């Protein structure tokens, strides 16, 4: 019988709010984090409401200070392509920007809320991703972006908001699907300052994050089985951990999963540490195809380690050394229950912060818990099981029943198959004898041919039935073993479902020369540009050769600092060898083909002659 006696429980009759409180998570932040889960009502009062039209115009609908949650959901017809959005921080002049940046520095000094990156993300990524990262940073000049002053002003405003009403809020939702009870905890942050505050990918006004706990009912009690945290780079099965996986899932006072929140990004992690969140540049499809083909050739044909220079590594700091909110910590949650009947949840489909007109959306604010940026329904809301890959997983008590029922079905089918195989095999033998009897009688040629077809079809059928029986035997064996394990109270490996496990970096072990690597990482790109400028000025006729040599020298310097000299030399030499091979083929293709033909001919002759002579 399936046992979960070591699990905490809650009565199935408990109210939604009681359930949410019983299992509410504890959130551990990184020192230096300025934004914490906030109250949307207060935030909305500090915002103005806008509309961005397809022709590029923007219109103010409700001024700052006049907006409420009720006004937010008032219907306002708009043309296709219109984006409705909130604006937390109004446009700042140059003087105001300088002022808020200075005020932000003073506030941080006063609160002693500093962040130290340690070995930064630049040193953790290689030279090529860093080069692409440089281009990515430059792209902000062309794309819409949220300014550093906006981030600073948001930090100051949030601080004032919190002083007026000091509380940490989560928005809890309880959904029931396919035998599971899903507790969703939604966290709203006024700002995501991952880029400006923590060297990350993006900044945007407002941020919605979610974690979910999946419970099943057994004997009138709800028992937690899975916990899923929304995170970068991961989806489906990879998002969830089993409640008894103590190596991955930390819990406070048995009932409360611990979330390590990424600094600035607010992504949720199961374990403390610094995670490499990789950002894939949105490449055109032809270029992605080319990169895929090259990677396949590089790894499969040449046997080299995989790498993608268009994947920029960003570090998400989830150290858990800052503020702690929730059970077991000094700060408590203020829960608010939400569902589809909550007007601001279901009726406001716009963005919860600035629409920065960023074509790749990284700097645009997100929509609410129920919607995506384009107003379409958010899958984690309407399909909370599919979000964590649980749509295919029955709750444990049902799993046992389903397994038994499956076993019975297979056993029944096996019996059916035995009977049919016996009948059909007899029929086949009878036809065989009949056919044999026709042989040697030319006047029965037609009947013989027709019988041959029937016999062949019947033989195929019998073969198919025997194959099915054989496959079912193996299936039944597996199902029976699984049933025995469940009956004995054994559980599978809690991580069997995970394909990609999020693991924190071990930065202290990554480099031979930490400080030098970090300094090199910071200045190498600029040095490269200076060297190219000098080359163009002093030796304009040899730009390509010079560029190649400079690039190679930088790669070698990088590899020495990263302790990868041998691998780098091997890769560079291999690339040069490929270029040289192409040149040789271009000049001597006739000779190469002739040599290949002669060699193949000689080899085949040797093989055949050896066979001939025994």
């Amino acid at each position, binding site marked *: 019988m399936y046992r979960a006696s070591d699990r905490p429980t809650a009565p199935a009759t408990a109210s939604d709010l009681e359930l949410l409180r019983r299992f509410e998570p504890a959130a551990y932040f990184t020192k230096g984090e300025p934004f914490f889960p906030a109250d949307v009502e207060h935030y909305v009062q500090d915002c103005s409401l806008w509309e961005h039209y397809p022709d590029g115009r923007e219109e103010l609908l409700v001024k700052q200070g006049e907006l409420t949650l009720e006004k937010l959901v008032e219907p306002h017809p708009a043309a296709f392509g219109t984006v409705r959005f909130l604006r937390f921080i109004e446009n700042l002049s140059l003087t105001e920007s300088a002022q808020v940046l200075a005020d932000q520095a003073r506030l941080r000094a006063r609160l002693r809320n500093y962040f130290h990156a340690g070995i930064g993300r630049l040193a953790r*990524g*290689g*030279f*090529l*991703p860093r080069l692409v990262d440089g281009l990515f940073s430059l792209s902000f000049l062309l794309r819409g972006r949220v300014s550093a002053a906006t981030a600073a002003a948001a930090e100051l405003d949030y601080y004032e908001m919190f002083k007026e009403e000091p509380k940490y809020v989560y928005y809890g939702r309880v959904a029931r699907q396919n035998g599971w009870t899903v507790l969703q905890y939604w966290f709203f942050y006024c700002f995501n300052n991952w880029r400006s505050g923590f060297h990350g990918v993006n900044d945007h006004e407002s941020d919605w994050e979610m974690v979910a706990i999946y419970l099943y009912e057994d004997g009138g009690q709800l028992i937690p089985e899975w916990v899923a945290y929304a995170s970068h780079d991961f989806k489906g099965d990879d998002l969830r951990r089993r409640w008894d996986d103590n190596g991955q899932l930390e819990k406070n006072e048995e009932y409360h999963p611990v979330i390590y929140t990424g600094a600035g990004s607010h992504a949720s992690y199961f374990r403390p540490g610094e995670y490499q969140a990789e950002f894939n540049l949105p490449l055109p499809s032809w270029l992605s195809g080319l990169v895929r083909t090259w990677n396949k050739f590089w790894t499969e044909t*040449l*046997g*080299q*380690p995989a*790498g993608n220079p268009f994947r920029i590594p960003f570090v998400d700091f989830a150290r858990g050394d800052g503020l702690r909110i929730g059970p077991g910590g000094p700060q408590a949650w203020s829960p608010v229950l939400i569902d589809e009947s909550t007007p601001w949840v279901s009726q406001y489909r716009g963005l919860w912060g600035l629409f920065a007109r960023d074509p790749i959306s990284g700097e645009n604010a997100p929509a609410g818990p129920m919607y995506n940026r384009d107003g379409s329904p958010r899958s984690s809301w309407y399909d909370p099981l599919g979000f964590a890959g649980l749509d295919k997983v029955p709750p444990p008590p049902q799993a046992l029943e389903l397994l038994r029922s499956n076993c019975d079905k297979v056993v029944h089918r096996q019996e059916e198959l035995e009977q049919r195989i016996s009948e059909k095999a007899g029929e086949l033998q009878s036809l065989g004898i009949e056919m044999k009897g026709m042989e040697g009688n030319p006047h029965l040629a037609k009947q013989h041919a027709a019988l041959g077809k029937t016999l062949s079809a019947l033989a195929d059928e019998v073969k198919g039935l025997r194959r099915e029986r054989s496959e079912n035997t193996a299936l039944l064996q597996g199902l029976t073993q699984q049933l025995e394990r469940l009956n004995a109270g054994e559980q599978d490996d809690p991580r069997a479902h995970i394909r990609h496990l999020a693991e924190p970096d071990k930065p202290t072990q*990554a480099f031979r020369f930490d400080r030098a690597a970090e300094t090199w990482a910071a200045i190498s790109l600029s040095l490269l540009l200076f060297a190219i400028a000098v080359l163009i000025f002093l030796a304009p*006729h*040899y730009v*390509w*050769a010079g560029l*190649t*040599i400079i690039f*190679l020298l930088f*790669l070698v310097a*990088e*590899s020495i600092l*990263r*302790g*990868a000299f*041998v*691998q*780098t*030399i*091997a*890769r*560079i*030499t*291999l690339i*040069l*060898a490929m*270029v*040289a*091979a192409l*040149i*040789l083929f271009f*000049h*001597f293709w006739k000779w190469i083909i002739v040599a290949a033909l002669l060699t193949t001919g000689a080899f085949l002759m040797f093989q055949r002659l050896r066979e001939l002579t025994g």
Partner: protein
Amino acid sequence: MARRKKSDRKKRPIAVTVIAAAIVALFLIRLYQVFEPLIRQQVFQNGIAVPLFDGWRLTDLGRALFSSVAYLVLSVAGIVVLIGFLRLRRWSWVLLMSWTGISLAITLVNYFYAQHLLGSQPNYAVMASNVIIAFALNMTEVQRIFGIRRDENVPGI
């Protein structure tokens, strides 16, 4: 009866022999490059009859002697690497790969800028030998036998 001592020698893959043959071929080419300029300048008949420098510049004879000495050093280095390589030493793999990379880079610069930069034709024989060596050194079994590849994650560049 004395027990036969088991040999702990690592089995040498065929690629190692191919590389060794390529090193020998390169050695012979380099040896030719040592003597060719000296013969062209008739050093063996006349000795060093004219000055090697004209002010700060090398004379034709100076250039010939300089390149011969350089190729001689390379030939000797090639022999040292060959010995290390046949004894399956890790350092020889690293040295040979580095040298092949540098040699390929020079050959390619020579190819693309032959007329402008060096005033000579690219040496396709050297290029071909280097390509063979580079691909052979990259083979998994060769890297394993030299202790280069241990199938663990290495930081990317």
